[in-house]
């Protein structure tokens, strides 16, 4: 009993450490003065470092089940958890000057951000419907609160309200699907569910109904068409530091969600969910890329671009092959790098009081700040998928997996949509290099912000030139 408890706790040590740390941070922040608020930030960063390290070492090298099989620690969990902790650290770093300029620099931002991360970690390690649902709710509730973080902003309140109502419906849909599957299979545990599905003689209708509800819930949380309506409004309405947060780490939870609940738990039903995922992916690629062209607000444009990228990620999972799933994980990590950098540039330009969330704010950036114009160029080119950037390699392996799985037409369609998508990324580059903004002030930002933003953008290049190390991390994920 005691030994079992120790080994269980050792498997979830990153989550336990983070949960305890959040409580300490919350109390610590209550008792310090406003001018010492930087200490909260420093403590949050320390917590992230500790969480990342503990997550990287949890469970040794193999696959460990804990708490009676409802929690799993495998290579997939380790990679995604470390990536999520890193992404959150970058988010906190970019947000600090932005929040300070707007008198939003308070401890709650860090507490809620860390709670969101805790939810992400729980989802990634979830191996039971209940655990995954708890993680998802913890993530979602923290995000709802963060969207209305600037509570005097009318647009923030509006988007927060939309997000909350739609998110509650999606959670209900997911939970309803889970309860149907549970009602018939008699198990909440994903490992037992897999055995149950393997022993079935033909596919019963109820399982399909449950699976359909679950996939709708997942698609909503992922922001895939036709469940994407909240994405542009939330990206645009939320404070930019929160849009940055929503655009990065939670995507890693979404990919884990779809892999755990569908690809790992129900491989027997591949034929069914493959069709659903492919439909979602095709619609996301189509709507995301085409509607993004019409946007004038760059946060909204990046929201539609996120929808399009989700299409690519879902295509990878939909192949049902190991190579496809690994390509999807690689793609989502590369996407998170590019999205963090792009929102970082928006916040860099915004840090002089006014928001730089219109495309026109990027006019003539190459004269105001040649270096960061170059960085934005790298990030946009990575999102288009121009070699030798990381986005190219990510798209390449997803397409390769698709072709190997026999879906040549889907691969062609994805390439075609990438070409359509290139238009709106190239427009940003055109505005930066070939247009002028009279009277534009030079860009100012703290040194650590500039340094990390540069590293972030150069990472999009480095991962494309040397994809080997990350690709090694992303192989053998499913053990």
């Amino acid at each position, binding site marked *: *009993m005691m030994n079992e*408890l120790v080994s269980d706790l050792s498997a979830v040590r990153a989550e336990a450490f983070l949960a305890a740390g959040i*409580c300490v941070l*919350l*109390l610590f922040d*209550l*008792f310090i003065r406003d001018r010492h608020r930087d200490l909260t930030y420093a403590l949050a960063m320390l917590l992230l470092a500790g969480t990342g390290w503990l997550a990287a070492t949890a469970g040794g090298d193999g696959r460990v089940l804990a708490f009676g099989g409802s929690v799993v620690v495998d290579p997939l969990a380790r990679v995604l958890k470390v990536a999520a902790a890193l992404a959150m650290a970058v988010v906190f770093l970019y947000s600090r000057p932005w929040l300070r300029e707007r008198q939003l620099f308070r401890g709650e931002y860090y507490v809620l951000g860390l709670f969101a991360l805790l939810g992400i970690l729980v989802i990634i390690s979830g191996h039971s419907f209940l655990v995954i649902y708890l993680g998802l709710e913890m993530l979602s509730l923290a995000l709802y609160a963060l969207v209305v973080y600037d509570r005097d902003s009318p647009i923030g309140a509006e988007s927060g309200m939309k997000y909350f109502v739609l998110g509650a419906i999606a959670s209900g849909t997911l939970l309803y699907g889970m309860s149907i599957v549970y009602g018939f299979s008699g198990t909440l545990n994903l490992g037992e569910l897999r055995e149950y599905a393997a022993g079935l003689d033909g596919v019963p209708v109820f399982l399909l109904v449950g699976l359909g509800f679950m996939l709708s819930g997942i698609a909503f949380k992922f922001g895939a068409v036709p469940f994407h309506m909240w994405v542009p409004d939330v990206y645009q309405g939320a404070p930019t530091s929160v849009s940055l947060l929503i655009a990065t780490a939670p995507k890693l939870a979404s990919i884990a969600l779809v892999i755990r609940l569908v690809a790992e738990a129900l491989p027997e039903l591949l034929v069914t969910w493959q069709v659903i995922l492919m439909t979602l992916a095709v619609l996301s690629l189509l709507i995301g890329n085409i509607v993004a062209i019409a946007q004038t607000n760059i946060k909204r444009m990046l929201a539609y671009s996120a929808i399009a990228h989700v299409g690519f990620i879902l295509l990878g999972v939909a192949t049902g092959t190991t190579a496809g799933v690994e390509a999807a994980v690689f793609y989502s990590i590369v996407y998170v790098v590019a999205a963090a950098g792009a929102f970082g540039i928006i916040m860099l330009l915004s840090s002089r009081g006014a928001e730089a969330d219109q495309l026109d704010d990027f006019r003539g950036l190459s004269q105001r700040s040649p270096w960061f114009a170059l960085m934005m160029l790298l990030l946009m080119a990575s999102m288009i998928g121009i070699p030798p950037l990381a986005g190219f390699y990510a798209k390449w392996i997803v397409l390769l997996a698709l072709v190997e799985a026999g879906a040549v037409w889907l691969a062609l369609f994805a390439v075609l949509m990438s070409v359509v998508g290139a238009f709106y990324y190239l427009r940003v580059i055109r505005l930066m290099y070939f247009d002028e903004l009279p009277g534009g002030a030079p860009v100012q930002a703290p040194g650590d912000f500039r340094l990390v933003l540069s590293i972030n953008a150069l990472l999009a290049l480095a991962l494309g030139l040397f994809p080997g190390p990350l690709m090694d991390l992303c192989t053998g994920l499913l053990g």
Partner: protein
Amino acid sequence: MLNNYLPVLLFLMVAVGIGLILLGIGFLVGRGQKDPEKLSAYECGFEAFEDSRMKFDVRYYLVAILFIVFDLEIAFLFPWAISLDEIGLYGLGAMAIFLLVLVVGFIYEWKKGALEWD
């Protein structure tokens, strides 16, 4: 398995039956002289002050939420207390952690002034 629910079904039928009979007797036997006094809104014996669909202070909402948190805590404590002899030290530890987390939240709301009306 469904046999276990038979008493519940009987109870439901009796409850609905009694309700219907009581209302039905009143409806059939009662004389029902309706006048303005009888049909007007009743508020503790005096005239109704205002429309009941008015705005009220958003702080009630905060108090209600804080109340629900600690109300639900009781809902967890009762089954825990009853099964304590079976779940042992493990259960004691789990509940201690749960209460500790709630106390952290309680300190937060207190220090932030959520418990002060003005």
